[in-house]
C-alpha cells in the first residue's frame, strides 16, 4: 500500500519532520531518504507525480520536496494539485540547471523555494527545516 514505505522509525515520531520526497530518479530518492532518516526526519518516498499525489491523499506531511521534471507528470501540475490538497504544506522544488524560469513559475504557484540539482545535501536539509518551521507557525 502506498505510504507504507516509511523508513527508520525511531522514537518519537511526532517530533520528527514528516517529509514527502517526489522524484522519478529512484536511486536518488533512496539515498536521500536514508540520509534524511538519520537527521530526524520521516521520509515517504514517491517515484512519480501520481505516487506523490496518492501519498498525500493518505496522510499529511510537514514538507514536500518535488522534482520539477518528471516523466509522468509536469512538476508544476503536481505542485498545483498539492497546493489544492493541502495549501499549508510548503513545497520545495528541485530543478535542473537552466530551468530557473520554470522554478520561478513554481514560486508564482506557491512553492516555498527552489534548489538546483545536483544540490548540496546540507543545503537541502536547511531548507526543509526552514519550511517545517514556517509551517509550524
Amino acid at each position, binding site marked *: 500500500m502506498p505510504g507504507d514505505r516509511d523508513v527508520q522509525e525511531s522514537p518519537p515520531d511526532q517530533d520528527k519532520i514528516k517529509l514527502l520526497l517526489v522524484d522519478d530518479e529512484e*536511486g*536518488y530518492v533512496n*539515498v536521500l531518504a536514508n*540520509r534524511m532518516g538519520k537527521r530526524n526526519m520521516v521520509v515517504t518516498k514517491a517515484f512519480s507525480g501520481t505516487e506523490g499525489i496518492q501519498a498525500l491523499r493518505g496522510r499529511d506531511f510537514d514538507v514536500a520536496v518535488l522534482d520539477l521534471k518528471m516523466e509522468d507528470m509536469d512538476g508544476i501540475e503536481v505542485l498545483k494539485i498539492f497546493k489544492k490538497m493541502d495549501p499549508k504544506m510548503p513545497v520545495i522544488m528541485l530543478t535542473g540547471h537552466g530551468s530557473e524560469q520554470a522554478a520561478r513559475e513554481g514560486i508564482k504557484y506557491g512553492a516555498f523555494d527552489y534548489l538546483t*540539482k*545536483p544540490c548540496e*545535501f546540507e543545503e537541502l536539509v536547511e531548507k526543509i527545516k526552514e519550511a517545517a518551521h514556517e509551517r509550524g507557525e
Partner: protein
Amino acid sequence: MDQTRHKADGYYHSLARNMILAVLIVSITPMLLVSATILYQFHQSYQAKVYAHLEELVEKHRQNIDNFLKEKLADIQALAKTFSYEELSDESFLRDRLEVLQEEYGAVFVDLGVVNARGVQMAYAGPFKLGKALYSEAEWFREVMKRDYYISDVFLGLRGLPHFILAVRQNWGGEPWILRSTIDFVAFTKLVENIRIGETGIAYILNRRGEFQTKTVLDALPSKGPCSDFVETGKPFTEEDVCVSVRGDGMGSKNLYVGAALKGGDWLLMYRQRASDAFSDFQRTLKVTLVIILLGSLGIASMAVLVSKRMVNRIAEVDSEKQLMNEQIVETGKLASVGELAAGIAHEINNPVAIMVEEAGWIEDLLEEEEFKESENLQEFARALKQIRTQGKRCKEITHKLLSFARKTDSRVEEVRPKELIEEIVALSGQRAKYSNVKITTTLQKGLPALHVSQSELQQVFLNLINNALDAMEKKGGVIDIRGYLVGPYAVFEVADTGPGIPQANLARIFDPFFTTKPVGKGTGLGLSICYGIVKKLGGDIEVESVMDAGTTFRVKIPLEGDKGEGEASGPFARTEAKQGAR
C-alpha cells in the same frame, strides 16, 4: 573543388553568351529588317523614277529627231512640189535653191540633185564634183522608186564620207523623177550625241541590221527584250514603245538600255548608261546605310558583350556570397545541434553524479555509528569519501559550464552583473587557455553596476573576443587582460592580448561580415561582425587598436542606462521582462 569551379565557369560563360545572343538578336534583327524594307522600297521607287525619267528623256529626243527628219523631208518635198522637173534641172536654179535652203537651215543640206527615172543625175548643186553620176544601182534609188520618199541609212557613198540621203519622188509628164539631198552626218549626230546624262550615258542610233548610224559604241544592244528583238527579228516594236532593259557587260557592271523607234520603225534610238551611274544616288544611300548598320551592329555587339560580362560577373559575385552564407548557415545549424546534444548530455550526467555524491554522503553518515569509531581505516574512509564528494562537485562544475554556454540564445534584457558574467566566461575558456599557454587576468573596477543587457548576447561578445585572442596566441602563448571601468555614462570593457597584432590594412575591415584571415574552414568571418551588431544594438560601441608584434586591444562601450532606442528594437520580450523587474 576545381571540378566545381570549372562547371561554374562553364555555367557563367554560357549565361553570358546567352545574354549576348539575346541582345544581339533582339536589337540587330529589327534594325536589319527595317533597313532592308526601307531600302527595298526606296530602290523600287527610285528605279521607277529613274526609268520614267529616262523614258521621258528618250521619248523627247526621239520626237526631236523624228521631227528633224520630218522637217528636212518636208523641205525637200516642198521644193519638189513647188518647182517642176525642168526648172530644177537647171543647175544654176538648183544652186539658188540650195543656197536658200542653206541660208534658212544652215549647212544641214549639203547638196541637191535631180535624178531621172533611169537613175541618171541630171542636175547637181553642191560641193562635190558629181556631174552626171549614175545611181541606178544605189539602194536609195531603188527604194525611192518604190515609195514616195526615202530616208536612207547612213553609208559611205561615192564620196567616201558617211552621209545619208533624203530623196523624194515626183511625177512630171507621166514620168517619175527624184529630188535628192544629202544631209550632213555631223550635224545630225550632234543632235544625238547631245543626249548625255550622268557620266556614262550615251545615245546612238541603229538600223535594222544593227549598223550604227551615229558613233560606234561597244555593247550596243541588251541581250534580251524588245530592243534586241528589233535587230534580230526585224520586228518593229510599235512607235509608242520605249523599252528599258538591263544587261550585264560580262565584266561585272550592268548597263541600262532605253530604246525608242525612229523613222517609222526603221531605226532604233538607243540610250545606254551604266546602271551604277544611273542609280548613283541609290548606290550612295545603300553604302551609307550599310556603313551605319555595320557600325551600329559593332556598337551593339560590343555593348552587349561589355554589359553582359559585367552583369555575369556581378551575378557570380552574388552567387558566391550566397554560397558562403549557405555554408555559414549549415555550420551554424551544426553548431546548434552539437550544442543541444552537449546540453542534453550534461543534464543526464547530473543525475548519476548526484546519486554517487549522495551515496558517499550516506556512507559518511553511517561511519558516525558507534561500530566504526574504532576502525583503523576511519581516516582513510573519510578521506576517500571526501574525495568522491570533491570530484562530484567538479563534475557539477563542468556540466554547469557547458549548460550555461549551451543555453538557448534569447535577447531578453536582464540585469547582468558584469563581474559574474566575465568570471563565468573566463572559467569556460580556462581549459583552452591553459592548453594554449595563455594566462587570463581580470581587472574590474570595483562597484561596476549591473547592465541592462541580454545576458546571452553580451556573453557571446566576450566569448568571441576571448576566443579570437586565444586563436591569435595559439602558437606562442601570451596574456589576455580583461579590464572594466566606468567612463561617464558608459561601462567600458577592454580585452587586450599580447598576440601578433592586426595589420593596419585589415583593421578597417575587421568588423565586416565574412572577413577573416583564418584559413578556409577554420573561421567563418562572422564572429566580429556579430559582436559589432550586438554592441550597436545595445546602444554602445566597439573599437580596436593594434600594434604589430605587440598585441591587440578590443574596447567595448556599453551605456549604463540600457537601450535608449539607439539600436534596433530588442527581442520581443524585452519590454515585458524589464517591467517584471529583476530578481
